[in-house]
């Protein structure tokens, strides 16, 4: 009799474990809630930043030199965009906005690579948007 009871208990425990594992698997699926796929939109935002600067003619005589007038204009525009959107903007791995996030630790949002006439020659420059964590 006791052997039967213990056998039933083992069965009950196994059933309960199976049920709990199935339920937790299903509930974890609910809890996960994957976010929206906004990869195209993020790419478009990065392209917008590039396009806006191009429209304003700020890449005509652009140089990464500290005393370059175009760089100052680009910096001012990027700071303005940072104020509106909360996005840090980096060009060629160099932070152009005044937000405090460092490029190496910044949470990247999107990057685009475009050709521009920089320091007197055509170069491919990567423009990266990142979240401002400051």
């Amino acid at each position, binding site marked *: 009799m006791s052997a039967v009871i213990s056998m039933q208990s083992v069965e009950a425990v196994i059933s309960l474990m199976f049920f709990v594992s199935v339920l937790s698997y*299903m509930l974890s699926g609910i809890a996960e809630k994957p976010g929206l796929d906004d990869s195209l939109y993020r790419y*478009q935002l990065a392209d917008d930043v590039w396009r806006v600067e191009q429209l304003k003619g700020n890449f005509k005589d652009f140089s990464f030199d500290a005393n370059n007038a175009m760089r100052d204009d680009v910096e001012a525009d990027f700071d303005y965009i940072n104020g509106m959107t909360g996005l840090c903007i980096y060009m060629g791995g160099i932070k152009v906005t005044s937000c405090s996030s460092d490029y190496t630790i910044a949470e990247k949002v999107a990057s685009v690579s475009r050709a521009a006439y920089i320091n007197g020659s055509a170069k491919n420059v990567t423009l990266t948007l990142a979240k401002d964590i400051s």
Partner: protein
Amino acid sequence: MAQNASSRYEMSKAFITFDGLFSILPALMIIMLAFNAAHTLTDEAVERINRQQVFDKLVSVADYTVKQGAAVSEDMGAIAGEEVRYPNWVDDSKITDQYRESLRKRANLNGLSIELTNPGDGSYCIYRIVVVGSGKDIDLLYVCGD
């Protein structure tokens, strides 16, 4: 003796019913829980798909507006009929109620607003970075809808 046996038989039947009852109840509870979980999962998936669809439509509407619908354009006099568009340079006079309504219908959205100011009315919004006016001032174009 015969009465005793009959009484024992009745007792055992009662126990079998009782036993059955106690095994059916948890089984029913498990089935109900599983149905509830499946129902919640389905609702969640439908909601997620709807959200993604609305978002994708807003992204398309915003991209079309920025690159074509409301982009500043110039007629190239020398080449008759040719028009040059400047993507991301927005002419806000082109964003009329009629323009919004036609896009809303084409995108099959319940509501659509395209503004240079954040409507902040709780509807789902995305923005694009643009320049406006002859001074090419940087601004955000908000595209909201549901």
